[in-house]
């Protein structure tokens, strides 16, 4: 085992390499490009025995990934943001094929407005596709969870594609020390891909992904996929335990940080949760009984694990780096559903923050903790909060002033009735 400074992208590429991937259909998109660049170089210099094909779109990329997995080879691919959405039709489709492979998503906010920086709206949009989802908060997790993801995807009880998610910029471009497993140990852990009956062979003709007529066979196959996704919880625990035995790092479907005797908890996903850990430490130093609960798995949704972990908690602050327009935070909604009707269910407050790479400051974590505590005292959560500071608003007004000056300079009318971000 060696230790290297790797970016999150580098760690994802190493995961694909150590898993002895056979095939990589690719398409470049910021901030994922470093993954496919690294893999392409290794293949060109003979360090990986893998075939890589640059497709003309992510839609085609996921089609090729699913088709190759359905033919019986081990497949890896990577995308981000608009790419994930462009491929969305095929995410649902290849999950229905029960084609197991691993897809890295480097989370990035969605257009419009177009941005390169991170949030989770891309990955939560893939929530209902049939892909399992593992969310990482460090570069080490990216590598380890990529290896685990292959075991999870290829397990007979699951047989579905898995997305390993990491945040653009905050993880994709951040270098951290990462323990690289020995290639032989990684190979032994991931094992050979046995496609069983999922294959195309001259001696065994098969029709895959055929049409169905009527709701009954359709429902049957859809339910089967749902149940297979749910099996992912048990299978994850098994393959993660095996990983821990072999490599000494333990991963859970829901990670707890200083949750012992906690009365309050932050709940959030991804790399910003490392900031929440710092906030927890500081608040603990000031005498707060607070912890952090971080789902690694968003699909299947670890309902029981949440219920067990949060049953004794009085107040929760869910921080969503996504926004479901007209509803709010997706994790908040899901957690509410998981906790509803539980005896002594906690009061759950909702916060939206970190959209498009916007920072979440320590002060904001303290304020969210405070809000969650007040909500417990009042026995009622406040309406969801959209994090935005006075300072930010002032800076935004400055940008708008510049836009207005430039517009007036060009002699355009004020266009009071038109909306959209381009106009303000």
């Amino acid at each position: 085992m060696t230790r290297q400074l790797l970016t999150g992208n580098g760690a994802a590429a190493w995961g694909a390499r150590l898993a002895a991937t056979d095939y990589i259909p690719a398409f470049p998109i910021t901030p994922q490009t470093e993954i496919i660049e690294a893999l392409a170089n290794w293949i060109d210099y003979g360090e990986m025995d893998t075939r890589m094909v640059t497709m003309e779109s992510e839609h085609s990329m996921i089609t090729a990934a699913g088709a190759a997995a359905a033919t019986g080879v081990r497949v890896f691919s990577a995308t981000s943001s608009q790419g994930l959405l462009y491929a969305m039709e095929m995410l649902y489709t290849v999950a229905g094929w029960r084609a197991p492979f691993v897809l890295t998503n480097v989370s990035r906010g969605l257009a419009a407005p177009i941005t390169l920086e991170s949030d989770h709206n891309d990955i939560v949009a893939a929530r209902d596709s049939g892909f399992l989802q593992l969310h990482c908060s460090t570069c080490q997790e990216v590598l380890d969870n990529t290896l685990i993801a292959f075991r999870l995807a290829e397990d007979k009880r699951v047989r579905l594609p898995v997305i390993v998610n990491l945040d653009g910029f905050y993880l994709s471009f951040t270098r951290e020390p990462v323990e690289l497993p020995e290639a032989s140990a990684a190979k032994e852990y991931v094992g050979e891909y046995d496609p069983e009956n999922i294959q195309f062979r001259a001696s065994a003709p098969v029709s895959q992904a055929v049409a169905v007529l009527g709701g009954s066979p359709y429902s049957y196959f859809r339910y089967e996929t749902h149940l297979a996704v749910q099996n992912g919880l048990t299978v994850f625990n098994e393959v993660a335990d095996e990983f821990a035995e072999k490599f000494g790092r333990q991963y859970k479907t829901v990670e707890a940080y200083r949750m012992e005797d906690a009365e309050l908890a932050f709940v959030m996903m991804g790399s910003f949760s490392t900031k929440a850990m710092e906030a927890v430490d500081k608040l603990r130093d000031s005498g707060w009984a607070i912890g952090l609960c971080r789902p690694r798995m968003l699909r299947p949704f670890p309902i029981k694990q949440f219920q067990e972990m949060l049953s004794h908690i009085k107040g929760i602050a869910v921080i969503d780096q996504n926004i479901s327009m007209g509803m709010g935070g997706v994790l908040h909604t899901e957690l509410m559903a998981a906790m509803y009707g539980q005896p002594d269910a906690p009061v759950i407050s909702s916060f939206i923050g970190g959209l498009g790479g916007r920072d979440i400051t320590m002060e904001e974590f303290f304020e969210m903790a405070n809000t969650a505590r007040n909500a417990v005292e009042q026995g009622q959560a406040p309406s969801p909060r959209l994090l935005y500071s006075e300072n930010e608003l002032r800076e935004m007004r400055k940008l708008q002033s510049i836009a207005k000056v430039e517009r007036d300079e060009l002699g355009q009318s004020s266009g009071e009735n038109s909306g959209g971000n381009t106009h303000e």
Partner: protein
Amino acid sequence: MSEVPMTRYKSLKHMPSTRLLGTGTPMCAGCGGLGALHEIYDILGEKTVFVNAAGCMTLMSVYPFTPFRGSWLYTAMASAPAGAQGIRDALDILIEKKRISKAEDLQVVVLTGDGSAYGMGLSATSGTMERDLDYLYICYDNEGYGNTGQQFSAATPHAAKTSTSMGPRGFSGFKKDLFAIWAAHKPAYVATVIGSEPVDLARKIEKAMQMKGPRMIIALSPCPTGWDYDPKETVEIGKLAVKTGVWPLKEYINGEIIHTKIPRQRQPVEEYLKLQGRFKHLFEPQRNETLISKLQNKIDTYWENIES
């Protein structure tokens, strides 16, 4: 220039006598696409995997039935060629890494309608040609979105009445020249075929099977429901499409375009048009001479360039 071997299909009596494609599919009676597919499949054989895009022929394989003796994968409307890429690459990898024997290999065949081939799937198709993917593409071209009730597509001919061009002049656009677009990519092979010319079709499929790289086939597919004619006329309409010069039978090979059947005595296009309800408005309530001669002129111009 590589040598193309002599054909075994010299005349109708040399055609395969066994029918490989099963019967009882849900295709319409008289489906010209199904006719062409029967002829193609008899030559291709069962060591094939068909990669399908959304269209009429998606209904060929409805769980748990299939008329194919070989394999099948349904993808989506836009990305059947990308599915072919994944399967071809995976089979190559499995053979290279000696996980399967060469005897397990399959011909990868994309099967789509014109809606996918001329439009939504064109980008994915272009990608496979640029990557020199070794596969066969069969487009059954019934000149409209047939499976959804014959709305006009990029393959619909000028003036044809479709369910989205019901007006007195029919479809105002012009049929896209997919043959030229495909040939511009310089793939191994491009050919037009039609089921009513089985010997020409058989030779082209036979030739395509002996090549590597992208081999692209467009089969004009007379469509009784979409073109509005009696199903028994499918073969006659197909023959007229060739005799009137509407559907030139040709191939692109080694950088050259060769016409495989030149109708020396071209019949007037109206012989082809008047059999089809979709062109009825050109003749009734009164004859639309302007539009008919416009269509005739287009055909004449095309062939003048070929014959000269």
